[in-house]
C-alpha cells in the first residue's frame, strides 16, 4: 500500500495578516478555510474530511460546527496534534483517508494569535515533575542542540547565520513578510545573544495568522482549474530522550521521516528542486537538511554557507517566502506555511524573483515540539503533474 499519487493539493490559502488584534482565532480559521475552498473552486458543502490540531479552539467538533461544514457529508475527522508539523502529518493522513475511500475532499486549517491573543496551554506529560522547573523554551531547547552540534561537528555561528541571510534575500520580495530587510552574516552575529549560541536573528518571528489546504482525489483535482500538485511520499516520526540513554541532540526525528518519504516517492534528495524546511531557528534548518539527506551529518554548516540556500544563487532554494525567520510563523507553528510555499513553487505561483525554474519536485518538512527535548517530524514530497 502507498499513498503515492493518491491525493492532490487542490486549494491553498495563506492569511496575509501577521497581526490580528481585531479578529478571533476561530475567525482566522474560518477565513483561511474560506480562502482555500475558494482557491480550489469548490463549495464548503463538498468538504467531507476535516483536519485540525491543537490551535483549533476546542478541537475538531467545535470547529466543524463553527465552520458550518456539511455534517451530513463530513465523514472523516483527524485532530492529530504534533505541534508545528501537525499539518504536514495531516496532509499524509488526508492522503491515507482519500486512498482508503474514507473522504474525498479534505480541509486542513491552522490559525491563531500568539502576538495578540492567549495561547492555549499544553497538557503536561509524564515528565512534568522532572523537567518543568528547568524552563525549557524553544530558544534554549534549540540552543542546546546548536551547542552540541558545534561541539561535535565544528559548526559555526557564521554558518548558521547564512540560513537567515538566505531567508532574508527571499523575504524582500514578499509584501506580507514581517522582516523584509536583507541582512548579512555580520548582522546576525551582531544581534543580541538570546540563548547561547543562538542570536536574535537565529530565531523566527512571532506572528498571528494561519493557512489552509484542500486535499482531494486525482479525479476531483483534474476537474478543477488549478495546476496539479500531488503528494508522492510522506513520512512521520517522533524522538525523545528515551530514558536518557545515548542522548544525541545533533539529529532529529527527520532522520526517520525523511527517508520514509523519499522511499515512498521513489526519489532522492538530489532530485528536489525546492525545499520548504521548518525554520523555527537557523539550527532547525541545518539539522533537518542533514537529517533529510541533502548532505552528510555534520556537514550542514558547509552546505548552507555562501548563499547555497538562496533561490537563483545556490543549489537548494529554500523557504522562498522568507519562511519563519522573516515572513511569518502563525501560532508558533511552521508546518502549514512550509506546504503552502512548496505548492506555490510547484504551481509556478511564487514571486518571479524567487520562483525556481521547472520546479517539478519539492519537499515540505517540519518538526513539532522541542528538538532539544521531545518532538515529532514529518516530511512530504510533492510533485507537479
Amino acid at each position, binding site marked *: 500500500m502507498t499513498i503515492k499519487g493518491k491525493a492532490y493539493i487542490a486549494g491553498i490559502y495563506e492569511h496575509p495578516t501577521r497581526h490580528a488584534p481585531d479578529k478571533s482565532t476561530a475567525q482566522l480559521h474560518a477565513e483561511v478555510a474560506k480562502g482555500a475552498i475558494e482557491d480550489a473552486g469548490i463549495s464548503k458543502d463538498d468538504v467531507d474530511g476535516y483536519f485540525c490540531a491543537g490551535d483549533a479552539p476546542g478541537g475538531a467538533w467545535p470547529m466543524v460546527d463553527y465552520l458550518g461544514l456539511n455534517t451530513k457529508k463530513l465523514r472523516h475527522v483527524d485532530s492529530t496534534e504534533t505541534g508545528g508539523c501537525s499539518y504536514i502529518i495531516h496532509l499524509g493522513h488526508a492522503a491515507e483517508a482519500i486512498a482508503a475511500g474514507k473522504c474525498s475532499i479534505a480541509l486542513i486549517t491552522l490559525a491563531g494569535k500568539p502576538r495578540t491573543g492567549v495561547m492555549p496551554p499544553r497538557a503536561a506529560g*509524564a*515528565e*512534568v*515533575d*522532572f*523537567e*518543568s*522547573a*528547568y*524552563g*525549557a*523554551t524553544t*530558544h*534554549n*531547547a534549540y*540552543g*542546546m*542542540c*546548536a*551547542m*552540541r552540534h558545534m*561541539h561535535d561537528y565544528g559548526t559555526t555561528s557564521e554558518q548558521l547565520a547564512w540560513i537567515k541571510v538566505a531567508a532574508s534575500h527571499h523575504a524582500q520580495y514578499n509584501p506580507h513578510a514581517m522582516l523584509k530587510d536583507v541582512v548579512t552574516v555580520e548582522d546576525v552575529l551582531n544581534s*543580541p*545573544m*538570546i*540563548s*547561547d*549560541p*543562538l542570536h536574535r536573528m537565529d530565531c523566527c518571528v512571532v506572528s498571528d495568522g494561519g493557512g489552509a489546504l484542500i486535499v482531494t482525489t486525482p479525479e476531483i483535482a483534474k476537474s478543477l482549474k488549478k495546476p496539479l500538485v500531488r503528494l508522492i511520499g510522506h513520512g512521520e516520526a517522533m524522538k525523545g*530522550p*528515551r*530514558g*536518557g*540513554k545515548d*542522548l544525541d*541532540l545533533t539529529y532529529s526525528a527527520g532522520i526517520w521521516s525523511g527517508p520514509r518519504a523519499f522511499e515512498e516517492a521513489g526519489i532522492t534528495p538530489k532530485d528536489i528542486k525546492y525545499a520548504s524546511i521548518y525554520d523555527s531557528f537557523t539550527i532547525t534548518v541545518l539539522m533537518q537538511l542533514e537529517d533529510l539527506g541533502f548532505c552528510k551529518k555534520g556537514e550542514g554548516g558547509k552546505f548552507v554557507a555562501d548563499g547555497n540556500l538562496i533561490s537563483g544563487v545556490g543549489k537548494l532554494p529554500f523557504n522562498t517566502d522568507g519562511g519563519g525567520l522573516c515572513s511569518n510563523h502563525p501560532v508558533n507553528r511552521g508546518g502549514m506555511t512550509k506546504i503552502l510555499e512548496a505548492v506555490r513553487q510547484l504551481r509556478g505561483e511564487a514571486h518571479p524573483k524567487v520562483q525556481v525554474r521547472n520546479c517539478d519536485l519539492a519537499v515540505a518538512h517540519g518538526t513539532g515540539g522541542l528538538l*532539544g*527535548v521531545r518532538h515529532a517530524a514529518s516530511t512530504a514530497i510533492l510533485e507537479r503533474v
Partner: protein
Amino acid sequence: MSETKKYPAPVTNPETAAFWDAAKQGKFMIKRCTACGEAHYFPRSICPFCYSDKTVWEKASGEGTIYTWSLMRKSPTGPYAIGYVTLKEGPSVQTNFVDCDLTTLKIGQKVKVVFKPTDGAPLPFFTVA
C-alpha cells in the same frame, strides 16, 4: 539568582513518589531494570528499553558531565542555564546549572547534584564539581 528563585513543588504520583521521598533525604535516585540491566531517567515502573516490570530504585552518585547547555540571557526571573548532564551511571538528565559561573560552562565539564527547596519535595539541580 538561584538563591532567590522560587521553584514549583513537584506534584508527584504513585509511580515517582519514592524519588521525591528520597530527595527529601538528599538522595538522587534513578531506576534500573534488573532484567536488562539498563538504568533510566526519569523513573518509570516499566523499563522503557525491555518492557520488564522488574525495575528497582538505585541511589545515583549524583556525579556526571555536561552533555550540552544553553544560557538563557533574559527571563522574568533572570538568566538561567539549562542543559543535560550525563550521569556516571549512564542516563542523561535535563537540569539547570546553579551556584556557579554560568558564562564559563563547557561540554564535558564535571558536575554534581544539588537540591533546591520548594514548597514540597526539593528539586535536583547540578553545579560545577
